[in-house]
């Protein structure tokens, strides 16, 4: 980190310029055209650099536990073009905007992956690219927080990227206004949240209060107006209209909220109940203006999502996140929804849990005292005088009623209790009926027919590697391989059938003997793509277990032996990502001369000395 300050300046410049790339008055309205011009001309190099930057960033974030393979894959194994996805989403105003406008379907279409994968794309965007998005925002000075930790070579990559990007985007303008727009939407959402909280919790909605609320919204609008281009203006207007409609209808229908909540509870209890009514396909959600309960729920969820999104900005930039050892989505606990990172919301099944406690969620963020995450919401929002005023005005009113017992629960993740969590303890009896031996496992060793007499055993167990051997070239590759083969033969003789039952015949590099050189090459190619299928489709003649066995017994060991010799200071056999070189071709077939003979002399193995 010592070199960090130097990089920092470079960073801001770099990224500022990077951001230019995304701004293009042309493409903002005509994305198809843009996609054709800018993204679809398959400049693999720029993608490569993009991927590298992303990888470094993700590693920096999740330290050594990066379970984020690049390229990202969909459930069906198709790789996602992250770069294209990033561009597509950025041009629509970022994750929040796209989610809000329900443009994921469109984005999915545009990306060429098909409408069906929109949810998956959204998830992938959140997991891979959202942080990049925040990072770009952050280092370009929006939050002014320079403490973000990042490995040094990021700067270099970033510069390269910048250069490539600049070549691409000479005529593109500054993107700041897009960010402004996002910012506005953020602010707006917060207001919406608070508004919802107050209406939902207390079922009252004084006209005065509402007017004030809308004033506040208006103020923000005015403040930001200067920065807005006409298009943003339009968009904002439409947003405002939407809200207006919402508020208006809410005025008429306070009871809807109570109805909605109980409907939601019903759905959660019995999702298949016919009384719930028909909910259209997600594709038809967009633009739906009906006043049915489910559409209310969707609106609520929308707002919740936004709220969490803002929170998660925080969580992720905080130092806690750096020490995270596993993916945040596994911290989910339905009882403490405010700890759920947004990743948990990838699926509509979560709807019930997110809607059940909307009001308490808002209260926590407003009164900012009950939650562990009780920092100011967002630096840019926190500084907004209007926003602060709003909190001041509303917070006394939003204290939860006493009856909300779940607010008293500790916020920390805790043990879930109830019949769906605890085990049923069986009867205790001091007599046990002798189980059939079939339920006790099958004895493999020692073999039944062998009378094991420890005294006849030649070697006492627990012997290590002998200090020296009688080979002519001790510790040479040939010598070591000879001893491995020797040991294997010995084990084979001793174990008899157990040798095969433990699949020892399918262990070690010998596995490669049944593979042709060409097959091995193809397999290595297939695994480069890091698909979970390990190139299953290319090897229809080989079973799945055979492929896995080859992968672990040959490919990974070769990678390891390459690391042992070429990069001994940096060995990581559990790192699947790094490319590895080759040590003079496949040696599976050459190994025949060693393992095929029973006890070959060492001098036959001189051909392998070049490995050292």
């Amino acid at each position, binding site marked *: 980190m010592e070199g960090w300050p130097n990089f920092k300046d470079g960073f801001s410049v770099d990224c500022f310029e990077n951001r230019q790339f995304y701004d293009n008055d042309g493409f903002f309205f005509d994305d198809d055209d843009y996609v054709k011009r800018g993204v679809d001309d398959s400049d693999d190099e720029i993608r490569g650099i993009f991927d590298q930057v992303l990888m470094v960033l993700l590693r920096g974030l999740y330290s050594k536990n990066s*379970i*984020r*393979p690049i390229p990202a894959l969909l*459930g069906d194994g198709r790789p996602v073009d992250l770069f294209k996805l990033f561009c597509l989403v950025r041009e629509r105003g970022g994750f929040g905007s796209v989610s809000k406008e329900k443009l994921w379907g469109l984005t999915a279409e545009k990306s060429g992956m098909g409408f069906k994968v929109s949810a998956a794309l959204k*998830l992938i965007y959140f997991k891979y690219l959202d942080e990049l998005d925040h990072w770009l925002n952050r280092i370009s000075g929006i939050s002014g927080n320079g403490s973000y930790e990042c490995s040094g070579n990021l700067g270099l990559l970033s510069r390269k990227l910048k250069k490539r990007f600049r070549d691409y985007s000479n005529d593109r303008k500054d993107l700041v206004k897009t960010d402004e727009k996002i910012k506005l939407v953020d602010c707006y959402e917060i207001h919406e949240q608070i508004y919802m909280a107050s209406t939902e919790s207390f079922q009252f909605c004084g006209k005065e209060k509402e007017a004030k609320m809308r004033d506040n919204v208006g103020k923000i609008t005015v403040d930001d107006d200067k920065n807005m281009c006409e298009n943003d203006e339009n968009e904002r207007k439409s947003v405002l209209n939407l809200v207006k409609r919402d508020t208006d209808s809410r005025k008429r229908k306070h009871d809807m909220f109570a109805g909605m909540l109980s409907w939601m509870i019903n759905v959660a209890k019995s999702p298949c109940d016919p009384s719930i009514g028909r909910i259209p396909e997600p594709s038809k959600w967009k633009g739906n203006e009906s006043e049915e309960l489910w559409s209310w729920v969707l609106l609520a969820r929308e707002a919740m999502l936004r709220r969490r999104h803002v929170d998660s900005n925080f969580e992720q930039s905080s130092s806690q*996140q750096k020490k995270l050892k*596993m*993916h945040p989505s*596994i*911290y989910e606990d339905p009882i403490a929804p405010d700890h759920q990172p947004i990743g948990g919301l*990838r*699926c*509509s*099944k979560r709807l019930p849990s997110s809607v059940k406690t909307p009001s308490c969620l808002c209260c926590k963020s407003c009164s900012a005292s009950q939650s562990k995450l009780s920092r100011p919401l967002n630096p840019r929002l926190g500084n907004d005088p209007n926003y602060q005023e709003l909190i001041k005005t509303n917070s006394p009113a939003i204290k939860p009623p006493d009856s909300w017992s779940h607010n008293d629960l500790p916020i920390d*993740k*805790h*043990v879930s*209790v109830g*019949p*769906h*969590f*605890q*085990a*049923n*303890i*069986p*009867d*205790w009896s001091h007599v*046990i009926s002798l*189980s*059939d031996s*079939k*339920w*006790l*496992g*099958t004895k*493999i060793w*020692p073999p039944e027919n062998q009378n094991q007499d*420890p005294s006849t055993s030649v070697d006492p*167990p*627990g*012997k*290590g*590697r002998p*200090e020296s051997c009688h080979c002519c070239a001790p510790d040479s590759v040939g010598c*070591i391989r000879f*001893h491995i083969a020797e*040991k294997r033969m010995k084990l084979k003789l001793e*174990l008899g059938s157990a040798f095969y039952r*433990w*699949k020892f015949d399918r262990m070690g590099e010998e596995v490669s003997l049944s593979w042709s050189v060409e097959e091995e090459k193809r397999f290595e190619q297939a695994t480069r793509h890091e698909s*979970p*299928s390990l190139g299953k489709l290319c090897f229809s003649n080989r079973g799945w*277990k055979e492929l896995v066995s080859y992968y*672990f017994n040959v490919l990974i060991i070769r990678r*390891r032996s390459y690391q*042992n010799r070429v990069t*001994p200071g940096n*060995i990581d056999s*559990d790192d699947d990502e790094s490319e590895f070189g080759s040590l003079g071709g496949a040696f599976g077939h050459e190994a025949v001369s060693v393992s095929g003979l029973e006890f070959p002399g060492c001098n036959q193995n001189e051909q392998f000395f070049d490995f050292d």
Partner: protein
Amino acid sequence: MRSKDRISYFYDGDVGSVYFGPNHPMKPHRLCMTHHLVLSYELHKKMEIYRPHKAYPVELAQFHSADYVEFLHRITPDTQHLFLNDMAKYKLGVDDCPVFENLFEFCQIYAGGTIDAARRLNNKLCDIAINWAGGLHHAKKCEASGFCYVNDLVLGILELLKYHARVLYIDIDVHHGDGVEEAFYFTDRVMTVSFHKYGDSFFPGTGDVKEIGLKEGKYYAINVPLKDGIDDNSFTRLFKTLISKVVEIYQPGVIVLQCGADSLAGDRLGCFNLSIDGHAECVRFVKKFNLPLLVTGGGGYTKENVARCWTVETGVLLDTDLPNKIPDNEYIKYFAPDYSLNIQNGHIENLNSKSYLGTIKMQVLENLRRIQHAPGVQMQEVPPDFYIPDFDEDEENPDERIHQRTQDKHIQREDEYYDGDNDHDCNMDDA
């Protein structure tokens, strides 16, 4: 010289050929490596090795909900897109718990191993049973979590509870043993003790010293939250102090020890500084109680260190000290550069101050003191069949509960002629 304990060791050759997906830290191939190393040291001469039966769905449903088991049984990578809702419900998906080829078989093998191990202990066929494939302590009743799909430990403990009044569960994985703790949160018949890293949003986020159990189970869940970089000395001292006190007070009939190897220094996901000696010292200490002992694996994401650690611990359980130089074997290349059992020391700063550890120790001992004596009543009395939670009496259909109970009674019998699909038929008659 044969050790006087009879040791049963469980291994299935198929368990290693499981692939969680690219870059997934969990690599069951470590089990192959462990077994291979155990055999290279010729430790098989001192023990009996069994291939576990593949646990039947009905056995898995002793703890897990039947629909979850059914779902695990059905889902494959090729059909997972049809079950997106269920996958979200059961927390399976792209991250920690991917759907991979032979997922269910993998669960059946490792769960079968732990269940068989428990049965052998119950039948007094051995004194110590080892199943390195087991120990997947995060899985919950109705969902997968943290690389764990089926909680073999809970299933094994449930099996032990049929014969033993009190079971002590000890967990030295770097992660909190939340699945086991949760399963037995209400009962005093299982005491769970977990030593783990806690704080900084470390997975799974539970395991505060204040989590002590509820209802009858109050004070029967012990958590020892630790910070980054704890070393051999402080860890083993704390471990010995607390465990000896626990055994003295609780007087368990059998001990289940989860030996997750991710608490070793240099683990891909862990953050402790334990050496293999320190880790194995805990095993040695637990063995000294001379109680029936079920030892399982658990986490461990730097494969070669896992193999080293569990091999050494197999040696410890067999009273065999292993020489440092690893014998030649197929996987010798993994043990480069020095081909020895030692692992590199960790470089993580020890954030556990003496006063911090002292406070934790005092709190745990204080909670232990509340259990005035071993719950003697259970020595004579058969405990009630089920814990019936009083807060949701209305929601649970009493008929169903009886139904469940009859079902449980049938299990033992069903096993005998179980042949696939229609294992619930007899229950239908009962109902």
